C-alpha cells in the first residue's frame, strides 16, 4: 500500500455566527490522512468533531485555512466539481441513518448512482452488489423503514460504498445501536478498509471503536490534541510537506505551500 496523503488540512478554522453569538468551533487544525488508513476522530461532545468531519467531507466551507484532496487545494473548486467529488470519491454513514424511510432499500442504495446519472440497469446491478457485501441483498425490495436499526445502518454502508468511494466518512455510526449490532457494523467497515483499501474517517465516542483504528485524532475545544498512535505522527513540521512532495501531487502541494506563505 502506498503512503500517499489523501486529505490534508492547513490552519483550518470554522466560526459559527456573528457578534455575541460568534463561536469558534475549530481553531486551526493541521492534519493529514494517509490513503488506506483508518482514523478515529474523538473528543468531548461539542468539541468540534462533526464540524471537522463536514469540512473534510467538503460538505461545508472553512472560515479560514484549506483542505487538500489528493494534494489539490479544494477551496478554489467550483461547486459542481465539489458535488462530483463527493458523489464519486466519498461515502457517508451517519448516526441517525439518514435515509428515505418510505422508499425501498434498493432505491436508497441506488440514490448516489441516480444522482451520478447512471442508467437504471447499471444502478440496480451495482446496488445489489453493495447490498450483498453488507449481507442485505434479500431485503432489497423492503421498505427502508421496516428494517431494524442495525440493518438500516448496513443499508447506509451499502449506499456509502455503492459508488466505489476512496473515503468513507462515518459520524458515530454505532451511536444508535446496541454493542453487538455496533460490532457488526464496525466489522463491515474494517473489512472494507482492509479488502478494498477504503480510507475510513470515523467520528466516535466509543473507545473500543477508536482503539481499532490505525490512529486517533483527539479534538479538544477546536484544537488538535496529540494522541499516541501506531502510524506516523499527526502533528508534522511544515518541512514534512517538502520531503513528501515527491510522491504526492507535487504541483498541488506547492500550491498549498504558496498560499500558506
Amino acid at each position, binding site marked *: 500500500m502506498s503512503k500517499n496523503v489523501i486529505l490534508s488540512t492547513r490552519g483550518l478554522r470554522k466560526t459559527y455566527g456573528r457578534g455575541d453569538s460568534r463561536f469558534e468551533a475549530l481553531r486551526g487544525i493541521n492534519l493529514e490522512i494517509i490513503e488506506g488508513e483508518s482514523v478515529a476522530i474523538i473528543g468531548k461532545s461539542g468539541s468540534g468533531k462533526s464540524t471537522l468531519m463536514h469540512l473534510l467531507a467538503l*460538505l461545508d466551507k472553512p472560515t479560514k485555512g484549506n483542505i487538500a484532496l489528493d494534494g489539490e487545494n479544494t477551496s478554489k473548486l467550483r*461547486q459542481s466539481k465539489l458535488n462530483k467529488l463527493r*458523489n464519486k470519491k466519498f461515502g457517508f454513514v451517519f448516526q441517525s441513518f439518514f435515509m428515505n424511510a418510505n422508499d425501498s432499500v434498493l432505491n436508497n442504495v441506488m440514490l448516489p448512482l441516480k*444522482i451520478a446519472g447512471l442508467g437504471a440497469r447499471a444502478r440496480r446491478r451495482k446496488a445489489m452488489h453493495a447490498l450483498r457485501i453488507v449481507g442485505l441483498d434479500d431485503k432489497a425490495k423492503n421498505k427502508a423503514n421496516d428494517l431494524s436499526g442495525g440493518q438500516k445502518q448496513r443499508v447506509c454502508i451499502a449506499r456509502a460504498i455503492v459508488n466505489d468511494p476512496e473515503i468513507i466518512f462515518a459520524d458515530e455510526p454505532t451511536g444508535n445501536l446496541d454493542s453487538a449490532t455496533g460490532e457488526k457494523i464496525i466489522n463491515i467497515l474494517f473489512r472494507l478498509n482492509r479488502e478494498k483499501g477504503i480510507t475510513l474517517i470515523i467520528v466516535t465516542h466509543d473507545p473500543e471503536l477508536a482503539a481499532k483504528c490505525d490512529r486517533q485524532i483527539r479534538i479538544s475545544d477546536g484544537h488538535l490534541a496529540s494522541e499516541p498512535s501506531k502510524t506516523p505522527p499527526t502533528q508534522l513540521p511544515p518541512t514534512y510537506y517538502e520531503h513528501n512532495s515527491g510522491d504526492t501531487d507535487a504541483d498541488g502541494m506547492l500550491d498549498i505551500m504558496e498560499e500558506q506563505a
Partner: protein
Amino acid sequence: MKIFDIIKDANQNLLRNKLRTFLTILAIFIGSFSIISTSAIQAGVNDFIDSQVDSYGGDGYLAIVSQDSFDALEGLQGNMGNNNSPTEYNPEKIQTGMSPITDEQLQKVKQIDGIDADSVVEQKSLSISYVSSDKTEQKYLLSAEALPPGNIKVDLEAGKQLDLRADEYQILLESRYADALGYTTDNIIDQQIHLVVVDEYTQKEKSFDATVVGVIAPGVVSMGQQYVNNKLADDIYAENTKYYPEAVKSQTFALAANYDYEKYSADDIKKSLTEIGLSAMTIQDIIGQIKTFFDVILTVFKLFGFIALLAAAIGIINTLFMSVQERTREIGLDKALGMSSGHVFLSFSLEAIALGFWGSVFGIIVSVIIGNLVNAAFHADGSFLAAFPTFNLVSYTIPDILSVMLLIIVIAFLAGTLPARKAAHKNPIDALRYE
C-alpha cells in the same frame, strides 16, 4: 442526474401526500375548467356568428336603403329601443314607407372608394303566393330573395350552395319547409317544389318549379328567409311586375354591396353614403349586439377563471413550501451525495409543472365531457337550441386547448419557483443537523 429520473421523482413525490396533491390539483382544475369552458363557448358562439355573417355576405356586407327609408323605420320603431320622443311629421319627406333609391344615387354608390362597383346589386323583393309539392295537398306561404353576389356561404344543414349562374331554377329552403312539404331534411335535396304566383287580376296561377339544392340551417340572422338563384329571382320579379309601368319596374328600394373591410372602416363608408342621402348597415350592426352581449358574459366568466387560477397558484406555493419543509433532511442528503442546487430547483419546479399539467388536463377533459353533454341536452327536442342544429354551444380547438394548458403550466411553474429556490438554497449541513 438524468432528466427522466428527475421527472419520475417529481411525480412520485406528488403521490406521497395524495390528499394534499389532490386538493392542489382540484384548485387548478377549477381554474382550468372555467377558462377552457368559456373559451369553448366563445368559440362556439363565434363559429355560429361567423356562419351567420357568411350567410349574409361576409364581413364586407352592406345593406343600403335611402336615408328617408331608414329614418322612417327608426321613427316608427324608436331608435333601437332608445326612449326618444316620437318623430315629428315632415311633409317634405316620405316618412311612413320605403322611398326609392334614384339611379343617380346608384351610380354614386358605385363610385365610392372602397365599395366594389361590381358587387352593388338591387335587392328586389319577390312576391310569392304559396309553395307546394307533389307529396302533399297543403299550400304554404313563403318569402324568398335572391342571394346577394359575392362569395356567400349560407349555413346549410344538407345539400350544397346555390349555383348563381345556373339556368335552372334553384332554391335553398329552411328545414321546416322540408317537413311541411312531406319530405325530410335529407331526402328533399334535388326534389322539385312549386313556387306559385297568383295573378292579381286574372286569378291565374303561374308555377315556377324549382329544385331544392340545399336546406338552410336555422340561424339568428336569416330566420324566415329562403334564397333563390338569379334566374328564378329575375323570372319571379318579372311576373310580379308585369303590369307595372316601366318607371316603377325599375324602381329600387334597397341595395346590397360589398366593401373592402380590410382597408376601409365601416364608418368611412357609411359617411360617404350619408353624403349622397343613403344609409347603410354592416353585418356588425346587424349581429354586433348579440356578439357584444355574449362577449361581456364570457369575459366575466373568464375573469372568474383567472381568479380561481390565481388562488390555485397560491395553493401550489403553499403545497410546495410544506413539502420543502418536510423534505429538508432528504434534500440535505441528496445534496450531500452530490446533487447540484440546479437539480434540486428543477425537481421542485417539475413538481409544480406536474401539478399544473394534471390540473389543466383534468379541467379540459371534464369541460369537454360536460360541454358536449350540455350541448346535446340543449339540442334535444323542445330545448332552447333545438331550432339551431348548427349552433354548437361549445367548440374545442387544439390551439385553444394547448394555449390554456401552456398558460396554466407557466403559472404553475412561476408559482413553483419560490419554494424551489428555497429548496435549492438548503445547505446539506443544516439539513443533516435538522431533526
